[in-house]
Protein backbone atom coordinates (compact mmCIF):
# COMPACT_ATOMS: atom_id res chain seq x y z
CA UNK A 1 0.00 0.00 0.00
CA UNK A 2 1.49 3.32 -1.00
CA UNK A 3 1.60 6.24 1.38
CA UNK A 4 -1.43 8.59 1.51
CA UNK A 5 -1.44 11.77 -0.55
CA UNK A 6 -2.29 14.01 2.38
CA UNK A 7 -1.80 13.19 6.03
CA UNK A 8 -2.93 15.60 8.76
CA UNK A 9 -1.77 14.61 12.22
CA UNK A 10 -3.14 16.16 15.40
CA UNK A 11 -3.28 19.69 13.99
CA UNK A 12 -4.31 22.56 16.23
CA UNK A 13 -4.48 26.30 15.78
CA UNK A 14 -5.05 29.18 18.15
CA UNK A 15 -5.04 32.91 17.55
CA UNK A 16 -4.15 33.65 21.18
CA UNK A 17 -3.00 31.50 24.05
CA UNK A 18 -5.88 29.55 25.68
CA UNK A 19 -8.24 30.42 22.82
CA UNK A 20 -8.01 27.37 20.60
CA UNK A 21 -9.91 27.51 17.33
CA UNK A 22 -8.93 24.10 15.92
CA UNK A 23 -7.88 21.15 18.07
CA UNK A 24 -6.81 17.58 17.46
CA UNK A 25 -7.55 17.46 13.74
CA UNK A 26 -6.34 14.30 12.04
CA UNK A 27 -7.26 12.68 8.76
CA UNK A 28 -5.72 10.96 5.75
CA UNK A 29 -6.62 11.19 2.10
CA UNK A 30 -5.54 8.88 -0.70
CA UNK A 31 -5.36 9.69 -4.38
CA UNK A 32 -8.81 10.31 -5.86
CA UNK A 33 -10.66 10.71 -2.58
CA UNK A 34 -13.24 13.40 -1.84
CA UNK A 35 -13.35 15.05 1.55
CA UNK A 36 -16.20 17.41 2.50
CA UNK A 37 -15.59 19.74 5.43
CA UNK A 38 -18.76 20.77 7.27
CA UNK A 39 -19.26 23.24 10.09
CA UNK A 40 -21.19 26.37 11.00
CA UNK A 41 -19.97 29.88 10.19
CA UNK A 42 -16.92 31.02 12.13
CA UNK A 43 -15.95 27.53 13.36
CA UNK A 44 -12.59 27.65 11.56
CA UNK A 45 -13.18 25.97 8.19
CA UNK A 46 -11.29 28.62 6.25
CA UNK A 47 -8.50 28.67 8.84
CA UNK A 48 -8.12 24.91 8.48
CA UNK A 49 -7.91 25.33 4.70
CA UNK A 50 -5.27 28.04 5.14
CA UNK A 51 -3.24 25.64 7.29
CA UNK A 52 -3.64 22.89 4.67
CA UNK A 53 -2.33 25.24 1.98
CA UNK A 54 0.57 26.43 4.12
CA UNK A 55 -0.69 30.03 4.13
CA UNK A 56 -1.05 29.90 7.93
CA UNK A 57 1.22 27.92 10.22
CA UNK A 58 -0.67 25.63 12.59
CA UNK A 59 0.15 26.08 16.28
CA UNK A 60 0.86 22.37 16.57
CA UNK A 61 0.58 19.21 14.51
CA UNK A 62 2.03 18.03 11.27
CA UNK A 63 0.82 17.98 7.67
CA UNK A 64 2.55 15.76 5.13
CA UNK A 65 1.88 15.91 1.42
CA UNK A 66 3.14 12.88 -0.54
CA UNK A 67 5.39 12.08 2.39
CA UNK A 68 6.98 15.54 2.45
CA UNK A 69 6.53 17.91 5.36
CA UNK A 70 4.24 20.66 4.02
CA UNK A 71 5.91 23.48 5.94
CA UNK A 72 9.22 22.60 4.25
CA UNK A 73 7.80 23.13 0.76
CA UNK A 74 8.22 26.51 -0.89
CA UNK A 75 5.12 28.43 -1.98
CA UNK A 76 5.95 27.45 -5.53
CA UNK A 77 6.35 23.73 -4.81
CA UNK A 78 3.11 23.79 -2.83
CA UNK A 79 1.27 25.47 -5.72
CA UNK A 80 2.47 22.74 -8.11
CA UNK A 81 0.96 20.04 -5.90
CA UNK A 82 -2.18 21.67 -4.54
CA UNK A 83 -4.45 24.40 -5.82
CA UNK A 84 -6.79 26.53 -3.74
CA UNK A 85 -9.96 28.24 -4.87
CA UNK A 86 -10.61 30.82 -2.16
CA UNK A 87 -14.09 31.63 -0.96
CA UNK A 88 -16.20 33.53 -3.46
CA UNK A 89 -14.44 36.76 -4.35
CA UNK A 90 -14.51 39.24 -7.20
CA UNK A 91 -11.41 40.35 -9.05
CA UNK A 92 -11.86 43.90 -10.19
CA UNK A 93 -9.25 44.04 -12.89
CA UNK A 94 -9.28 44.89 -16.58
CA UNK A 95 -7.83 41.50 -17.54
CA UNK A 96 -9.30 38.91 -19.85
CA UNK A 97 -10.50 35.57 -18.50
CA UNK A 98 -7.71 33.83 -20.41
CA UNK A 99 -5.04 36.09 -18.87
CA UNK A 100 -6.39 35.38 -15.41
CA UNK A 101 -6.58 31.63 -15.98
CA UNK A 102 -2.97 31.69 -17.25
CA UNK A 103 -1.86 32.87 -13.81
CA UNK A 104 -2.39 29.27 -12.73
CA UNK A 105 0.76 28.37 -14.71
CA UNK A 106 2.97 30.58 -12.53
CA UNK A 107 4.20 27.69 -10.33
CA UNK A 108 5.76 26.21 -13.47
CA UNK A 109 7.42 29.39 -14.74
CA UNK A 110 10.94 30.49 -14.05
CA UNK A 111 11.25 33.48 -11.75
CA UNK A 112 10.89 36.11 -14.45
CA UNK A 113 9.02 34.07 -17.07
CA UNK A 114 5.57 34.65 -18.48
CA UNK A 115 2.95 32.41 -20.07
CA UNK A 116 4.01 30.41 -23.14
CA UNK A 117 1.91 29.09 -26.06
CA UNK A 118 1.84 25.68 -24.32
CA UNK A 119 0.38 27.34 -21.25
CA UNK A 120 -2.30 28.89 -23.47
CA UNK A 121 -3.24 25.45 -24.78
CA UNK A 122 -3.56 24.06 -21.25
CA UNK A 123 -5.71 27.04 -20.27
CA UNK A 124 -7.97 26.67 -23.33
CA UNK A 125 -8.29 22.94 -22.66
CA UNK A 126 -9.67 23.54 -19.16
CA UNK A 127 -11.85 26.46 -20.24
CA UNK A 128 -13.44 24.08 -22.76
CA UNK A 129 -13.85 21.36 -20.15
CA UNK A 130 -15.73 23.77 -17.86
CA UNK A 131 -17.82 25.03 -20.76
CA UNK A 132 -16.69 28.64 -20.47
CA UNK A 133 -14.29 28.88 -23.40
CA UNK A 134 -16.63 31.45 -24.95
CA UNK A 135 -15.74 33.78 -22.09
CA UNK A 136 -12.00 33.71 -22.74
CA UNK A 137 -11.70 37.26 -24.07
CA UNK A 138 -14.19 38.80 -21.63
CA UNK A 139 -12.84 41.25 -19.03
CA UNK A 140 -13.02 39.78 -15.52
CA UNK A 141 -14.96 42.74 -14.17
CA UNK A 142 -17.89 42.02 -16.48
CA UNK A 143 -18.46 38.46 -15.18
CA UNK A 144 -21.28 37.39 -12.91
CA UNK A 145 -20.48 35.81 -9.54
CA UNK A 146 -21.16 32.35 -10.87
CA UNK A 147 -19.01 32.83 -13.97
CA UNK A 148 -16.17 34.18 -11.83
CA UNK A 149 -16.39 31.09 -9.61
CA UNK A 150 -15.97 28.82 -12.64
CA UNK A 151 -13.07 30.97 -13.86
CA UNK A 152 -11.39 30.69 -10.46
CA UNK A 153 -11.83 26.89 -10.52
CA UNK A 154 -10.33 26.81 -14.03
CA UNK A 155 -7.36 28.83 -12.80
CA UNK A 156 -6.83 26.24 -10.04
CA UNK A 157 -7.09 23.29 -12.46
CA UNK A 158 -4.55 24.90 -14.79
CA UNK A 159 -2.08 24.49 -11.89
CA UNK A 160 -2.45 20.74 -12.60
CA UNK A 161 -2.78 19.87 -8.90
CA UNK A 162 -2.94 16.45 -7.27
CA UNK A 163 -4.96 18.04 -4.50
CA UNK A 164 -7.69 20.57 -5.24
CA UNK A 165 -9.07 22.59 -2.33
CA UNK A 166 -12.36 24.42 -2.88
CA UNK A 167 -13.60 26.83 -0.22
CA UNK A 168 -17.39 27.00 -0.57
CA UNK A 169 -17.34 26.80 -4.37
CA UNK A 170 -21.13 26.51 -4.58
CA UNK A 171 -22.00 29.52 -2.43
CA UNK A 172 -22.60 31.95 -5.32
CA UNK A 173 -23.99 29.47 -7.84
CA UNK A 174 -27.52 28.74 -9.02
CA UNK A 175 -28.69 25.12 -9.05
CA UNK A 176 -27.64 24.52 -12.64
CA UNK A 177 -24.09 25.74 -11.95
CA UNK A 178 -24.02 23.79 -8.68
CA UNK A 179 -24.90 20.62 -10.57
CA UNK A 180 -22.18 21.46 -13.10
CA UNK A 181 -19.51 21.96 -10.41
CA UNK A 182 -20.57 18.84 -8.48
CA UNK A 183 -20.41 16.85 -11.71
CA UNK A 184 -16.99 18.28 -12.46
CA UNK A 185 -15.72 17.35 -8.99
CA UNK A 186 -16.82 13.75 -9.57
CA UNK A 187 -15.11 13.74 -12.98
CA UNK A 188 -11.90 15.06 -11.49
CA UNK A 189 -12.07 12.47 -8.74
CA UNK A 190 -12.42 9.74 -11.35
CA UNK A 191 -9.26 11.04 -13.05
CA UNK A 192 -7.35 10.70 -9.77
CA UNK A 193 -7.45 14.20 -8.30
CA UNK A 194 -8.00 14.39 -4.56
CA UNK A 195 -10.53 17.03 -3.55
CA UNK A 196 -11.23 18.86 -0.33
CA UNK A 197 -14.35 20.98 -0.33
CA UNK A 198 -16.21 23.04 2.25
CA UNK A 199 -19.93 23.58 2.06
CA UNK A 200 -22.87 24.83 4.07
CA UNK A 201 -25.15 22.11 2.72
CA UNK A 202 -24.77 18.58 4.13
CA UNK A 203 -26.50 17.38 0.95
CA UNK A 204 -23.35 18.24 -1.01
CA UNK A 205 -21.48 15.73 1.15
CA UNK A 206 -24.15 13.09 0.44
CA UNK A 207 -23.98 13.78 -3.31
CA UNK A 208 -20.19 13.63 -3.41
CA UNK A 209 -19.83 10.65 -1.08
CA UNK A 210 -16.38 9.79 0.24
CA UNK A 211 -15.26 11.17 3.57
CA UNK A 212 -16.46 14.06 5.72
CA UNK A 213 -14.93 16.10 8.51
CA UNK A 214 -17.19 17.78 11.05
CA UNK A 215 -15.86 20.78 12.98
CA UNK A 216 -18.15 20.37 15.99
CA UNK A 217 -18.74 22.97 18.72
CA UNK A 218 -16.20 22.85 21.60
CA UNK A 219 -13.39 21.95 19.21
CA UNK A 220 -14.50 18.36 18.75
CA UNK A 221 -13.41 16.77 15.47
CA UNK A 222 -15.35 13.95 13.84
CA UNK A 223 -14.23 12.35 10.62
CA UNK A 224 -14.93 9.24 8.60
CA UNK A 225 -17.11 7.93 5.77
CA UNK A 226 -20.01 10.24 5.03
CA UNK A 227 -22.80 7.73 5.75
CA UNK A 228 -21.30 6.79 9.11
CA UNK A 229 -20.48 10.30 10.39
CA UNK A 230 -23.06 12.62 8.81
CA UNK A 231 -25.92 11.25 10.90
CA UNK A 232 -28.94 13.26 11.98
CA UNK A 233 -27.64 13.27 15.56
CA UNK A 234 -24.19 14.60 14.65
CA UNK A 235 -25.50 17.17 12.17
CA UNK A 236 -28.03 18.48 14.72
CA UNK A 237 -25.24 19.02 17.24
CA UNK A 238 -23.07 20.53 14.49
CA UNK A 239 -25.61 23.13 13.37
CA UNK A 240 -27.62 23.40 16.64
CA UNK A 241 -30.72 23.05 14.47
CA UNK A 242 -33.43 20.34 14.23
CA UNK A 243 -32.62 18.30 11.12
CA UNK A 244 -33.84 15.09 9.50
CA UNK A 245 -31.60 12.75 7.55
CA UNK A 246 -33.33 10.05 5.50
CA UNK A 247 -32.63 7.74 2.58
CA UNK A 248 -34.27 8.59 -0.73
CA UNK A 249 -34.78 5.46 -2.83
CA UNK A 250 -35.23 7.47 -6.03
CA UNK A 251 -31.99 9.45 -5.53
CA UNK A 252 -30.27 6.39 -4.00
CA UNK A 253 -28.62 8.54 -1.37
CA UNK A 254 -29.21 10.23 1.96
CA UNK A 255 -30.93 13.63 2.17
CA UNK A 256 -30.70 16.20 4.95
CA UNK A 257 -33.55 18.64 5.53
CA UNK A 258 -34.49 21.20 8.16
CA UNK A 259 -37.09 19.84 10.58
CA UNK A 260 -39.85 21.48 12.58
CA UNK A 261 -40.74 24.46 10.40
CA UNK A 262 -44.08 23.11 9.14
Amino acid at each position, binding site marked *: MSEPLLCVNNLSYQYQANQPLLKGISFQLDRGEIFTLLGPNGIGKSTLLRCLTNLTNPTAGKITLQGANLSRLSHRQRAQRM*ALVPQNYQVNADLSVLEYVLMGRIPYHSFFGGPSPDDCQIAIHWLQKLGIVALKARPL*NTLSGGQMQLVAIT*RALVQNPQLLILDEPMAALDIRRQAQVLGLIKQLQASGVTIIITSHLPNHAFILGGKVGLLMPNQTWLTGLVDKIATAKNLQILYQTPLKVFYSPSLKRQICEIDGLN
Partner: protein
Amino acid sequence: MNNQRPFLLILMLFLCLPLFALIALSLGRLNFSLATVIKTFTNPGANPLATNVVQNLRFPRVLAALFIGAALSSAGMAYQKTFANPLVSPDLLGVTNGASVGAAMAILCGGGVWLTQGAAFLGGIIAVGLALLIPQLLHQQGNLILILAGVVVSGFMQAALGLLKYLADPDSQLQSIVYWQLGSIAKIDRPSLLAIFPILVVGFLILLAYRWHLTVMGTGEATTQAVGINQTFEQVIIVIGATLLTASAVSLSGTIGWIGLVIPHVARLLVGDDARFSLPLSAILGGIFLLVIDTLARTLSAGEIPLSILTGFIGTPVFILILATSHRRKSL
Protein backbone atom coordinates in the same frame (compact mmCIF):
# COMPACT_ATOMS: atom_id res chain seq x y z
CA MET B 1 -4.44 36.55 -27.13
CA ASN B 2 -4.95 40.00 -28.50
CA ASN B 3 -1.61 41.44 -27.47
CA GLN B 4 -0.80 43.20 -30.70
CA ARG B 5 -2.62 46.46 -30.14
CA PRO B 6 -0.98 47.35 -26.79
CA PHE B 7 2.40 46.25 -28.12
CA LEU B 8 2.09 48.45 -31.22
CA LEU B 9 0.98 51.41 -29.12
CA ILE B 10 4.02 51.08 -26.86
CA LEU B 11 6.37 50.64 -29.82
CA MET B 12 4.92 53.64 -31.65
CA LEU B 13 5.18 55.95 -28.63
CA PHE B 14 8.70 54.73 -27.90
CA LEU B 15 9.81 55.48 -31.45
CA CYS B 16 8.25 58.94 -31.19
CA LEU B 17 10.33 59.82 -28.12
CA PRO B 18 13.31 61.25 -30.09
CA LEU B 19 10.91 63.43 -32.08
CA PHE B 20 9.29 64.78 -28.92
CA ALA B 21 12.74 65.40 -27.47
CA LEU B 22 13.83 67.32 -30.62
CA ILE B 23 10.72 69.51 -30.50
CA ALA B 24 11.29 70.23 -26.79
CA LEU B 25 14.95 71.09 -27.55
CA SER B 26 13.87 73.60 -30.20
CA LEU B 27 11.43 75.46 -27.92
CA GLY B 28 12.33 78.03 -25.31
CA ARG B 29 12.96 81.72 -24.98
CA LEU B 30 14.97 81.33 -28.18
CA ASN B 31 13.15 79.21 -30.73
CA PHE B 32 15.27 77.21 -33.20
CA SER B 33 14.22 75.21 -36.21
CA LEU B 34 14.42 71.41 -35.90
CA ALA B 35 17.21 71.46 -38.51
CA THR B 36 19.26 73.81 -36.33
CA VAL B 37 18.73 71.55 -33.32
CA ILE B 38 19.91 68.49 -35.26
CA LYS B 39 22.95 70.45 -36.49
CA THR B 40 24.04 71.15 -32.90
CA PHE B 41 24.53 67.38 -32.61
CA THR B 42 26.11 66.74 -36.01
CA ASN B 43 28.08 69.96 -36.45
CA PRO B 44 28.48 71.78 -33.09
CA GLY B 45 30.73 74.50 -34.51
CA ALA B 46 28.24 75.87 -37.06
CA ASN B 47 26.06 77.86 -34.67
CA PRO B 48 27.83 78.38 -31.30
CA LEU B 49 24.85 80.14 -29.70
CA ALA B 50 22.39 77.39 -30.65
CA THR B 51 24.90 74.71 -29.64
CA ASN B 52 25.40 76.27 -26.22
CA VAL B 53 21.67 76.69 -25.54
CA VAL B 54 20.57 73.31 -26.90
CA GLN B 55 23.47 71.17 -25.70
CA ASN B 56 24.30 72.71 -22.35
CA LEU B 57 21.03 74.22 -21.15
CA ARG B 58 18.20 72.27 -22.72
CA PHE B 59 19.58 68.79 -23.42
CA PRO B 60 20.16 67.81 -19.75
CA ARG B 61 16.71 69.14 -18.86
CA VAL B 62 14.98 67.22 -21.63
CA LEU B 63 16.71 63.99 -20.63
CA ALA B 64 15.95 64.62 -16.96
CA ALA B 65 12.27 65.26 -17.70
CA LEU B 66 11.99 61.99 -19.65
CA PHE B 67 13.83 59.97 -16.98
CA ILE B 68 12.09 61.48 -13.97
CA GLY B 69 8.62 61.24 -15.50
CA ALA B 70 9.25 57.61 -16.47
CA ALA B 71 10.69 56.80 -13.04
CA LEU B 72 7.80 58.30 -11.08
CA SER B 73 5.05 56.74 -13.19
CA SER B 74 6.57 53.26 -13.39
CA ALA B 75 7.19 53.32 -9.63
CA GLY B 76 3.57 54.42 -9.17
CA MET B 77 2.35 51.56 -11.36
CA ALA B 78 4.44 49.05 -9.40
CA TYR B 79 3.10 50.34 -6.07
CA GLN B 80 -0.52 50.24 -7.25
CA LYS B 81 -0.04 46.66 -8.44
CA THR B 82 1.89 45.20 -5.55
CA PHE B 83 -0.48 46.72 -2.97
CA ALA B 84 -3.50 45.87 -5.18
CA ASN B 85 -4.76 49.39 -4.55
CA PRO B 86 -5.36 51.93 -7.32
CA LEU B 87 -5.20 54.89 -4.93
CA VAL B 88 -1.59 54.36 -3.98
CA SER B 89 1.23 56.64 -5.15
CA PRO B 90 4.98 56.12 -4.84
CA ASP B 91 4.93 58.39 -1.77
CA LEU B 92 3.09 55.66 0.15
CA LEU B 93 6.03 54.43 2.20
CA GLY B 94 7.48 57.87 2.91
CA VAL B 95 10.09 58.19 0.16
CA THR B 96 9.15 61.78 -0.77
CA ASN B 97 8.96 63.09 2.78
CA GLY B 98 12.19 61.28 3.63
CA ALA B 99 13.90 62.86 0.62
CA SER B 100 12.55 66.28 1.61
CA VAL B 101 14.06 65.87 5.09
CA GLY B 102 17.40 64.89 3.55
CA ALA B 103 17.34 67.85 1.17
CA ALA B 104 16.30 70.28 3.93
CA MET B 105 19.14 69.06 6.16
CA ALA B 106 21.63 69.58 3.36
CA ILE B 107 20.25 73.08 2.69
CA LEU B 108 20.49 73.94 6.41
CA CYS B 109 24.10 72.77 6.44
CA GLY B 110 24.77 75.06 3.51
CA GLY B 111 25.48 72.20 1.12
CA GLY B 112 25.54 72.70 -2.62
CA VAL B 113 23.51 70.97 -5.33
CA TRP B 114 25.42 67.70 -5.09
CA LEU B 115 25.11 67.42 -1.31
CA THR B 116 21.39 68.23 -1.52
CA GLN B 117 20.83 65.57 -4.16
CA GLY B 118 22.81 62.94 -2.27
CA ALA B 119 21.10 63.72 1.02
CA ALA B 120 17.66 63.64 -0.61
CA PHE B 121 18.38 60.23 -2.14
CA LEU B 122 19.59 58.84 1.18
CA GLY B 123 16.65 60.37 3.05
CA GLY B 124 14.19 58.65 0.70
CA ILE B 125 15.92 55.28 1.02
CA ILE B 126 16.10 55.55 4.82
CA ALA B 127 12.39 56.40 5.12
CA VAL B 128 11.32 53.38 3.04
CA GLY B 129 13.85 51.19 4.85
CA LEU B 130 12.22 52.14 8.15
CA ALA B 131 8.75 51.44 6.76
CA LEU B 132 9.88 47.97 5.58
CA LEU B 133 11.56 47.27 8.92
CA ILE B 134 8.55 47.98 11.15
CA PRO B 135 6.43 44.94 10.06
CA GLN B 136 9.50 42.73 10.51
CA LEU B 137 10.05 44.01 14.06
CA LEU B 138 6.37 43.42 14.87
CA HIS B 139 6.44 39.94 13.22
CA GLN B 140 3.41 40.83 11.11
CA GLN B 141 2.79 40.37 7.43
CA GLY B 142 0.40 41.73 4.86
CA ASN B 143 -0.38 44.87 2.94
CA LEU B 144 -2.13 46.69 5.74
CA ILE B 145 0.70 46.67 8.30
CA LEU B 146 3.20 47.80 5.66
CA ILE B 147 0.95 50.65 4.50
CA LEU B 148 0.40 51.69 8.13
CA ALA B 149 4.15 51.65 8.72
CA GLY B 150 4.55 53.87 5.65
CA VAL B 151 1.95 56.32 6.94
CA VAL B 152 3.68 56.45 10.33
CA VAL B 153 7.14 57.00 8.81
CA SER B 154 5.73 59.64 6.44
CA GLY B 155 4.17 61.46 9.39
CA PHE B 156 7.43 61.34 11.31
CA MET B 157 9.36 62.69 8.33
CA GLN B 158 6.79 65.45 7.92
CA ALA B 159 7.29 66.45 11.55
CA ALA B 160 11.05 66.42 11.06
CA LEU B 161 10.65 68.56 7.94
CA GLY B 162 8.48 71.00 9.92
CA LEU B 163 11.19 71.25 12.56
CA LEU B 164 13.88 71.89 9.95
CA LYS B 165 11.76 74.59 8.30
CA TYR B 166 11.18 76.17 11.71
CA LEU B 167 14.91 76.24 12.33
CA ALA B 168 15.76 77.49 8.83
CA ASP B 169 16.73 81.08 8.13
CA PRO B 170 13.48 82.52 6.69
CA ASP B 171 15.28 84.83 4.24
CA SER B 172 17.39 82.26 2.43
CA GLN B 173 17.22 78.64 3.59
CA LEU B 174 13.45 78.44 4.06
CA GLN B 175 12.93 79.74 0.52
CA SER B 176 15.28 77.11 -0.85
CA ILE B 177 13.47 74.33 1.02
CA VAL B 178 10.02 75.48 -0.16
CA TYR B 179 11.23 75.89 -3.73
CA TRP B 180 12.83 72.43 -3.64
CA GLN B 181 9.52 70.99 -2.49
CA LEU B 182 7.65 72.51 -5.43
CA GLY B 183 9.86 70.65 -7.87
CA SER B 184 12.10 71.94 -10.63
CA ILE B 185 14.65 70.54 -13.01
CA ALA B 186 16.08 73.92 -14.02
CA LYS B 187 19.42 73.27 -12.31
CA ILE B 188 20.05 69.79 -13.70
CA ASP B 189 23.53 69.23 -15.10
CA ARG B 190 25.07 66.32 -16.96
CA PRO B 191 27.17 64.92 -14.08
CA SER B 192 24.20 64.50 -11.73
CA LEU B 193 22.18 62.91 -14.56
CA LEU B 194 25.02 60.49 -15.25
CA ALA B 195 25.31 59.65 -11.55
CA ILE B 196 21.61 58.85 -11.22
CA PHE B 197 21.16 57.07 -14.57
CA PRO B 198 22.50 53.63 -13.56
CA ILE B 199 20.30 53.63 -10.44
CA LEU B 200 17.25 54.41 -12.58
CA VAL B 201 18.10 51.57 -14.95
CA VAL B 202 18.53 49.05 -12.12
CA GLY B 203 15.25 50.10 -10.49
CA PHE B 204 13.33 49.91 -13.77
CA LEU B 205 14.80 46.51 -14.71
CA ILE B 206 13.72 45.10 -11.33
CA LEU B 207 10.14 46.22 -11.97
CA LEU B 208 10.22 45.02 -15.58
CA ALA B 209 11.43 41.59 -14.49
CA TYR B 210 8.43 41.28 -12.18
CA ARG B 211 5.87 42.56 -14.72
CA TRP B 212 3.85 39.33 -14.86
CA HIS B 213 3.92 38.78 -11.10
CA LEU B 214 2.89 42.42 -10.70
CA THR B 215 -0.16 41.66 -12.86
CA VAL B 216 -1.07 38.81 -10.49
CA MET B 217 -0.52 40.90 -7.36
CA GLY B 218 -2.79 43.57 -8.83
CA THR B 219 -5.69 41.11 -8.69
CA GLY B 220 -5.35 40.79 -4.91
CA GLU B 221 -3.74 38.65 -2.23
CA ALA B 222 -6.16 35.72 -2.67
CA THR B 223 -4.97 34.83 -6.18
CA THR B 224 -1.36 35.78 -5.48
CA GLN B 225 -1.13 33.32 -2.59
CA ALA B 226 -3.11 30.63 -4.40
CA VAL B 227 -0.71 30.48 -7.35
CA GLY B 228 2.30 30.22 -5.04
CA ILE B 229 3.86 33.66 -5.27
CA ASN B 230 5.83 34.57 -2.15
CA GLN B 231 4.04 37.89 -1.76
CA THR B 232 5.95 39.17 1.28
CA PHE B 233 9.35 38.57 -0.28
CA GLU B 234 8.56 39.78 -3.80
CA GLN B 235 6.82 42.86 -2.45
CA VAL B 236 10.00 43.91 -0.65
CA ILE B 237 12.04 43.52 -3.85
CA ILE B 238 9.46 45.49 -5.85
CA VAL B 239 9.35 48.23 -3.21
CA ILE B 240 13.16 48.43 -3.34
CA GLY B 241 13.09 48.76 -7.14
CA ALA B 242 10.36 51.40 -7.05
CA THR B 243 12.15 53.26 -4.25
CA LEU B 244 15.41 53.38 -6.21
CA LEU B 245 13.42 55.01 -9.03
CA THR B 246 11.49 57.46 -6.87
CA ALA B 247 14.40 58.43 -4.64
CA SER B 248 16.68 59.16 -7.60
CA ALA B 249 13.94 61.09 -9.40
CA VAL B 250 13.04 63.14 -6.36
CA SER B 251 16.68 63.81 -5.50
CA LEU B 252 17.14 65.41 -8.94
CA SER B 253 13.93 67.37 -9.17
CA GLY B 254 12.44 67.83 -5.73
CA THR B 255 8.87 66.82 -5.11
CA ILE B 256 6.72 66.44 -8.21
CA GLY B 257 3.22 65.40 -7.29
CA TRP B 258 0.45 63.89 -9.36
CA ILE B 259 2.50 61.96 -11.95
CA GLY B 260 3.08 58.79 -9.91
CA LEU B 261 -0.60 58.55 -9.00
CA VAL B 262 -2.37 59.47 -12.22
CA ILE B 263 -0.17 58.46 -15.18
CA PRO B 264 -0.49 54.74 -14.23
CA HIS B 265 -4.28 55.15 -14.53
CA VAL B 266 -3.91 56.73 -17.98
CA ALA B 267 -1.81 53.71 -18.99
CA ARG B 268 -4.34 51.18 -17.71
CA LEU B 269 -7.19 53.06 -19.37
CA LEU B 270 -5.34 52.59 -22.65
CA VAL B 271 -4.14 48.97 -22.41
CA GLY B 272 -5.84 47.42 -19.36
CA ASP B 273 -4.43 45.82 -16.22
CA ASP B 274 -1.77 43.55 -17.67
CA ALA B 275 1.42 45.07 -16.25
CA ARG B 276 3.45 43.48 -19.05
CA PHE B 277 2.02 46.31 -21.17
CA SER B 278 0.82 48.91 -18.70
CA LEU B 279 4.19 49.16 -16.90
CA PRO B 280 6.32 50.13 -19.95
CA LEU B 281 3.48 52.27 -21.29
CA SER B 282 3.21 54.06 -17.96
CA ALA B 283 6.96 54.80 -18.07
CA ILE B 284 6.79 56.19 -21.61
CA LEU B 285 3.68 58.28 -20.94
CA GLY B 286 5.19 59.63 -17.72
CA GLY B 287 8.33 60.68 -19.58
CA ILE B 288 6.37 62.41 -22.34
CA PHE B 289 4.06 64.08 -19.83
CA LEU B 290 6.87 65.55 -17.73
CA LEU B 291 8.69 66.63 -20.91
CA VAL B 292 5.60 68.58 -21.98
CA ILE B 293 5.18 70.05 -18.49
CA ASP B 294 8.81 71.10 -18.20
CA THR B 295 8.82 72.62 -21.68
CA LEU B 296 5.75 74.64 -20.71
CA ALA B 297 7.39 75.57 -17.40
CA ARG B 298 10.28 77.25 -19.20
CA THR B 299 8.34 78.76 -22.12
CA LEU B 300 5.07 80.02 -20.59
CA SER B 301 6.59 82.88 -18.61
CA ALA B 302 9.89 84.66 -18.11
CA GLY B 303 10.21 83.04 -14.67
CA GLU B 304 10.25 79.32 -14.02
CA ILE B 305 6.89 77.89 -12.99
CA PRO B 306 7.41 75.09 -10.42
CA LEU B 307 6.55 71.68 -11.88
CA SER B 308 4.17 70.53 -9.14
CA ILE B 309 1.90 73.46 -9.95
CA LEU B 310 1.77 72.69 -13.68
CA THR B 311 1.35 68.91 -13.32
CA GLY B 312 -1.85 69.49 -11.35
CA PHE B 313 -3.28 72.23 -13.53
CA ILE B 314 -2.57 70.56 -16.88
CA GLY B 315 -2.81 66.93 -15.88
CA THR B 316 -6.29 67.12 -14.41
CA PRO B 317 -8.15 68.20 -17.59
CA VAL B 318 -6.07 65.79 -19.69
CA PHE B 319 -6.97 62.93 -17.38
CA ILE B 320 -10.67 63.81 -17.43
CA LEU B 321 -10.54 63.94 -21.23
CA ILE B 322 -8.98 60.47 -21.44
CA LEU B 323 -11.47 59.15 -18.89
CA ALA B 324 -14.38 60.52 -20.91
CA THR B 325 -13.20 59.10 -24.24
CA SER B 326 -11.77 55.73 -23.17
CA HIS B 327 -13.66 52.59 -24.11
CA ARG B 328 -12.16 50.84 -21.09
CA ARG B 329 -13.90 53.20 -18.68
CA LYS B 330 -16.02 50.49 -17.09
CA SER B 331 -12.98 48.99 -15.43
CA LEU B 332 -12.42 51.87 -13.02
